């Protein structure tokens, strides 16, 4: 029982990070109908921003512990950096290609991804870096021997707050309504006076800054970061987005949690060797039996 409780918690804290990345995939797909494969690398840039911000204005050495306020500031800083990155990439790279075939823009996204990965190796170095201890990790909950640390709890809560915040933006604000309108029908939305470019930029900024936040939370939980760290979490978050129904925001959150739990259970009870095979096997099964994902709605092709 102890083991089970601990495993569920391990899975949820891993899954919440996948969920945050998956949100970016799903939002951008919802608006532009394209998979931004560079999204996992935006997540990596977020982690590195946190690493450098942590060193620059929190403390001289990486072993020091910052205050909660400082940790929050660093996370906001990383979100600003990745938000700006997302905005710039969209304006410089994706916007000129908006009228091109979908395949062109997809290949370009892979190019951006490789550029960030190997550019990162050049700038940051290829060795893993130890992420600063932004918060001290104290065991807070102890249920029947299952120890739950404060950091994984912080990760879970922060991810939850960000997801609720996103939901509020999309459902309650004017720009959120505009996003939904563009997602539903871009041409009709622009005829109603919605500035499509602004909506797309906004979507990229929000999606990328969520990935940046995920980078910080990841660093908090798994304090070893390197320029290629975004590849696998990025792919798994993509699976999570498809699992939940690509384009569907609650679906991405749900998908992330499911993938996180599944991975943890496969590793803990079956074998870590099959972990990734099972995650991607599920993607195949879903595409076979429910191509729209768990919460996705069937889209009618208009001719």
């Amino acid at each position, binding site marked *: 029982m*102890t*083991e089970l409780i*601990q*495993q569920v918690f*391990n*899975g949820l804290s*891993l899954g919440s990070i996948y969920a945050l990345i998956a949100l970016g995939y799903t939002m951008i797909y919802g608006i532009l109908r394209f998979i931004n494969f560079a999204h996992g690398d935006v997540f990596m840039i977020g982690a590195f921003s946190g690493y450098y911000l942590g060193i620059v204005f929190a403390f001289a050495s*990486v*072993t020091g512990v910052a205050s909660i306020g400082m940790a929050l500031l660093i996370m906001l800083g990383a979100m600003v950096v990745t938000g700006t990155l997302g905005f710039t990439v969209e304006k410089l790279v994706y916007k000129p290609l908006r009228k091109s075939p979908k395949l062109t823009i997809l290949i370009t996204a892979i190019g951006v991804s490789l550029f960030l990965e190997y550019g990162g190796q050049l700038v940051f*170095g*290829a*060795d*893993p870096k*130890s*992420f*600063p*201890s932004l918060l001290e*990790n104290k*065991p807070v909950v*102890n249920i029947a*021997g*299952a*120890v739950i*640390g404060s*950091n*994984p709890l912080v990760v879970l809560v922060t991810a939850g707050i960000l997801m609720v915040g996103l939901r509020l933006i999309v459902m309650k604000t004017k720009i959120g309504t505009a996003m939904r309108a563009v997602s539903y029908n871009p041409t009709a939305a622009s005829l109603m006076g919605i500035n499509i470019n602004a909506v797309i930029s906004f979507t990229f900024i929000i999606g990328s800054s969520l990935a940046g936040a995920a980078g910080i939370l*990841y660093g908090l*939980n*798994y*304090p*070893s970061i*390197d320029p290629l*760290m975004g590849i696998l979490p990025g792919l798994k978050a993509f699976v999570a987005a498809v699992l939940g129904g690509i384009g569907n925001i609650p679906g991405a959150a749900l998908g992330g949690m499911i993938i996180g739990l599944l*991975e*943890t*259970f496969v*590793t*803990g*009870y079956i*074998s*870590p*060797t099959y972990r990734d095979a099972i995650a991607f096997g599920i993607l195949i099964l879903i595409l076979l039996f429910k191509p729209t994902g768990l919460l996705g709605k069937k889209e009618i092709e208009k001719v």
Partner: protein
Amino acid sequence: MKKLFFSMIAIAAIAVFSVSGCNKGSGDEILIGEYGSLTGPNATFGISSTNGLKLAVEELNNSGGLLGKKVKLITYDDQGKPSEAQTVVQRLIKNDNVVAVIGEVASSNSKAGAPICQQNKIPMITPASTNPEVTAIGDYIFRVCFIDPFQATVVSKFILNTLKLKKVALLKDVKNAYSTGLADFFEKEFRNMGGEIVEVQSFSAGDKDFKAQLTSIKAKNPEAIFIPAYYTDVNLISIQAREIGLTVPLIGSDGWESEKLTEGKAKDALEGCYFSTHVSTENPDPKIQEFITKYKAKYNSTPDAMAFLAYDAGLILFEAMKKAGTTEPEKVKNELAKIKDFLGVTGKISINEQRNAVKPAVILEIKGGEFKFKETVQP
């Protein structure tokens, strides 16, 4: 006209590349190749070993060189990847025409480079690959360190006799020949000596989340966990083990040896843990202390075991060349096989029939992020 111009450039380029391609080494230089992970997740392995080897070469050249010639070292980075290791060893032998190769630290990479040296009949000495299969690849492949069956015995004895613990869990890296090999030897040896292995879990190098495995291990209540793996992964494993409330000592092997092992939060997580390795910097032996002083003067850091071993790998290669009186690979190989009681900085080196060195191991304890000498175990 334009076409002619481009073809001229192309011809010139080909000419330049083919000339630089057959670098025979000017007559007064002996070319020795080295491959190592200067970047990537195990970067300190390559950096330390190349530093140690450079020191050996520099000293040799300052004291008049070898066979009347200067030795020139060519070092390539393999990024810690076996495929890359193959490429650079090929390049060392075919393009640079080296007469001997030194490397790698990681057994998986040595196993990738060694067959190429063997095929081309170029002697290769690995400073620190402990997996027994490395030197089994052929008669041109040597090592200056002990092998894993011995290391497994050392660790088993230490856990049972010194720590007096009987229930141990095992966590190994399935992507790594060193880790799986050592884990298998340990499992067998520890059981033979009367210990109990309560759980075996695995991961793949590069994983960041180990909590699922550690939680399964925790459920079996082991008294210690043996983790034969490399320092980058162990760093994260130790932090996560403490996070989920696993407080038992973690025991490791020579793959832990790196100043980066205790980086960040792992400094506290690994307090009071132990690992086996090749040499202790606390050993008062004048040879060891002299090497530490020289190394510190040149690199401004304390050498780790990989630096010591690479220095010794250089020394026995030069010794074999001196005895052979030539750099002809076959004769050098024959002399390498005869090395006996050679006094290096890691102790007496004798090459046995399997081309392995027979040497004692030391156990180090981690205290305040530093590696303190605990005990020596003779073969």
